[in-house]
């Protein structure tokens, strides 16, 4: 085994894929946003698009909307990584780490609420 390639266990696989897919989706959205920004607005817009206006702005092909969504996917990725780990630990019947993951996820969601308050 020494020097051989590491074989990922189920939890590692989940973490790897969630982070990779989250990253790629986020980068793709930001790429689209930058192209739209350069073509339609001659640069990047400031601020971010508010959540309630995001869908309409995306449909309009608004650069800021794609950039905002890209950033949101990026920020959401660690949340999904913890949620994915929780599921993977549950499948391995590792109750202790299901609880640990749940605690981390709860605290992270609490911070979302604190950001709004």
């Amino acid at each position, binding site marked *: 085994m020494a020097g051989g390639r590491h074989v990922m266990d189920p939890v590692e696989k989940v973490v790897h894929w969630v982070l990779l897919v989250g990253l790629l989706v986020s980068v793709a959205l930001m790429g689209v946003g930058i192209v739209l920004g350069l073509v339609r607005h001659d640069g990047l817009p400031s601020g971010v698009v508010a959540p309630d206006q995001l869908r309409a702005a995306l449909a309009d092909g608004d650069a800021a909307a794609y950039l905002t969504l890209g*950033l949101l996917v990026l*920020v959401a990725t660690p949340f999904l990584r913890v949620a994915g780990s929780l599921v993977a630990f549950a499948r391995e019947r590792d109750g202790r780490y299901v609880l640990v993951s749940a605690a981390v996820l709860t605290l*992270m969601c609490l911070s979302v609420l604190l950001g709004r308050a």
Partner: protein
Amino acid sequence: MTLVAIFAMAVFAGVVGSMVGVGGGIVVVPMLTLAFGAPIKVAIATSLISVIATSSAAQTVFVTKGLTNLRLGMSLEIMTTLGAIAGGVTAVLVSGRVLQGVFAVVLVYVAYAMNRRGGDVRPERTGVLEATFVDPASGRRVEYGVRRFKLGAFLSLFAGNISGLIGLGGGAFKVPIMNVVMGVPLKATIATSNLMIGVTAATGAVIFYGRGFVDIRYAVPAALGILLGARLGPLLAMRLRSRTLGVILQVLLVVFAVLMAVRTVQG
């Protein structure tokens, strides 16, 4: 053009951040405030978002190599997220000058702490959160366990707190906590710290996001630049000793510290 300049700065931050096991925020925040005139809280929010990008990108390498201790990371994340929440809430409420002053102090600490990183710990079996990995440099299998878990967890609270407060991943604190205090070998420590900074930074980022401190013009080029840099960093870190880069970074951090301290005093 500002967009390209921020992108280039972030590439540099990504390379050094992932190579020495910090998130890159330590470079992003001072550069954005000093060179690009960003308000400190916008710079912190931008940094937190870049740090998330660094973490996600580097993990795709570290997890595949089996270096990351996922159970240890998740356990300590309870404490770092708690700390990050307290830090984030404090940061959005206090004046930017206070944050600049704290940042200047942390810069000096990080420059100093980099100096002290000499040898690695001797791995020992402890029965706590044991893991094994194959050292990419030597090809040897390393088995280790965690020491002093409770102390490490307690200290992680402060690492998370600093992170949420001034926009770092907190790797500069997590690395000595795990390596020196908890006896985790350096390669596994850097990988696990890198995993944790993603969660810590995301926790802080949503607080700043909700309060309107995230700005596309800064966050997008910074995130994309740091992604490119962080992609390159782990590949380089596997092969070479980062001593030269470390010294350059130390000098830079001290310069940043002085400039930020001056701005804190001048207001």
